[in-house]
């Protein structure tokens, strides 16, 4: 030390030490204090976090999280739409049943139709019965049989549409029985088979959606585990030093977790935003192209593309879940790593 002349200074006493008495650390005469320079402010802080963030493959990880979030939101949105559409179909279908009366040799059709509507109306929860008149039936058959037919000459079954009051559950079994006994050749179709099939299909789609969703989540978690391990390995020196100066696993994992939570939030937000924009664009497109055959077909299959409030809330929940899982995965991975480092039993190395 050749910097400044040694001059005795009073023994400094750090006053708020833990423990009993303040312990002077050194006789200050041992070290010369270089004269204080004035007018220059030097920062004591590097501005770095304890775990240097540049060493973490942040960009790539954030991108992966964004893609995964996008896929998760897409799956969730699609499942929501399918579920909603299936539900709409189902309630439409189950608000109506059909009575079909096949022509019998010795049965007068008009009388049979009247008899059948009387029976149907006799049940509770039926709001109206409409017989499809001959013109309507002819129209219905036109694509197959051409125009100008006299429908009365053909053995075409009569159809009666029975509308059910909303929320009512008429006893279809009893109705079917009554019709069978009183109107020969009649049958009641409550579309149960359709509804069942529709339910099965919707359920299958939801299951597929849930599987895809789970796979995406699992892939996200695995990616985060690898990224965390990579970050720990490239910061092994930092982790070891922290551990030697007395940091516990919680402190160390906080340092990493903060960083990964940020990455997770950013990635999830951008992926979710992309998915939301996609749904909004599809919704706009489908409402703009209403009337074109493609749009009608798509509408018939998927309803409108509108996600609805619940869909968007779902997306937000998914995003929070992804960010949270990212942070949690990091925490668990770091804890494991640090504990293995702390483990005295790991042997000489």
């Amino acid at each position, binding site marked *: *030390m050749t*910097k400044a002349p040694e001059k005795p200074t009073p023994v*400094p006493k*750090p006053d*708020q*030490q*833990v*423990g009993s008495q303040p*312990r*002077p*650390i*050194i*006789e*200050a005469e*041992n*070290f*010369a*204090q*270089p004269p*204080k*320079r004035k007018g220059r402010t*030097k*920062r*004591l*802080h*590097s501005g*770095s976090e*304890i775990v*240097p963030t540049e060493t973490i493959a942040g960009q790539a990880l954030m991108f992966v999280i964004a893609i995964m979030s996008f896929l998760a939101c897409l799956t969730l949105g699609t499942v929501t739409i399918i579920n909603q559409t299936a539900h709409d179909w189902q309630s439409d279908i189950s608000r109506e049943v059909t009575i079909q009366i096949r022509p019998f040799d010795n049965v007068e059709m008009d009388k049979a139709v009247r008899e059948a509507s009387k029976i149907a109306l006799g049940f509770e929860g039926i709001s109206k019965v409409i017989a499809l008149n001959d013109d309507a039936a002819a129209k219905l058959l036109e694509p197959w049989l051409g125009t100008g037919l006299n429908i009365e000459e053909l053995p075409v079954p009569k159809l009666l549409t029975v509308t059910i009051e909303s929320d009512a559950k008429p006893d279809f079994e009893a109705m079917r029985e009554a019709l069978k006994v009183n109107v020969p050749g009649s049958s009641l179709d409550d579309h149960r088979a359709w509804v069942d099939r529709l339910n099965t299909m919707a359920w299958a789609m939801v299951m597929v959606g849930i599987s895809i969703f789970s796979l995406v989540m699992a892939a996200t978690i695995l990616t985060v585990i690898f990224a965390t391990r990579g970050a720990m390995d490239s910061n092994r*020196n*930092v982790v*070891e*030093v*922290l*551990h*030697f*100066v*007395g*940091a*516990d*696993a919680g*402190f160390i994992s906080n340092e990493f977790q903060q960083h990964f939570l940020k990455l997770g939030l950013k990635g999830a937000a951008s992926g979710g935003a992309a998915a939301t924009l996609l749904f909004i664009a599809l919704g706009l497109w489908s409402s703009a192209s209403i009337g074109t055959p493609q749009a009608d077909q798509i509408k018939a299959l998927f309803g409108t593309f509108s996600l609805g409030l619940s869909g968007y809330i779902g997306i937000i929940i998914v995003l929070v879940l992804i960010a949270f899982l990212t942070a949690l995965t990091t925490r668990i991975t770091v804890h494991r790593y*640090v*504990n293995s480092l*702390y*483990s*005295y*039993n*790991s*042997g*000489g*190395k």
Partner: protein
Amino acid sequence: MIKFENVGLRYGLGPEVLSDLTFQIKPNSMQFLTGPSGAGKTSLLRLMLMSLRPTRGLVTVFGKDAASITPEQLPAIRRKIGVVFQDFRLLDHLTTYENVALPLRVRGSSESSYRSDVTDLLGWVGLGERMHVLPPVLSGGEKQRVAIARALIDQPDILLADEPTGNVDPPLARRLMRLFLELHRSGTAVILATHDLGLMDQFNARRLVLNQGRLQIYD
């Protein structure tokens, strides 16, 4: 405070680096650990720090069998032990000031509570003007003093220092020695590994001498 009973150490399948060590480090004691290069000084310090597990024998630290200490208990014990590594182990992306403050930071102390302690200590080791620089800019001797300051900042019960005067010229080495003596006087048990006989001769303290894996003690 630290007790070794018939401790032996070998790395992998190699020869025994340390054999049959039996000794005790008493509270508030001062000792040199010496021996030629490669004698096992660093290994012995690592055994005391519990960063290495002995191949045989019993290590007791603060009255606890080291083998029975769980990962959850370890940080609390580490906080009572200050270490100066032979290769310093400073964090290159943090300033000198932040490096020295690190032990307090991991204990959850707030910056306002330790700021003046850290700057004072850095002044005392002659680094008052180097507080704001990153370690790669420091000379070997300066790094060494940062490492020492970091080990002392929380006034540990035990100080393990591995060749802490290895990179400085003799006058500075003597100053640093005074620092350790002062620390010892204020209640810390100090273990200094060094092969600098000249330095040891200037200070009267217990000597643990390692030679060919065996330990001889001169009180």
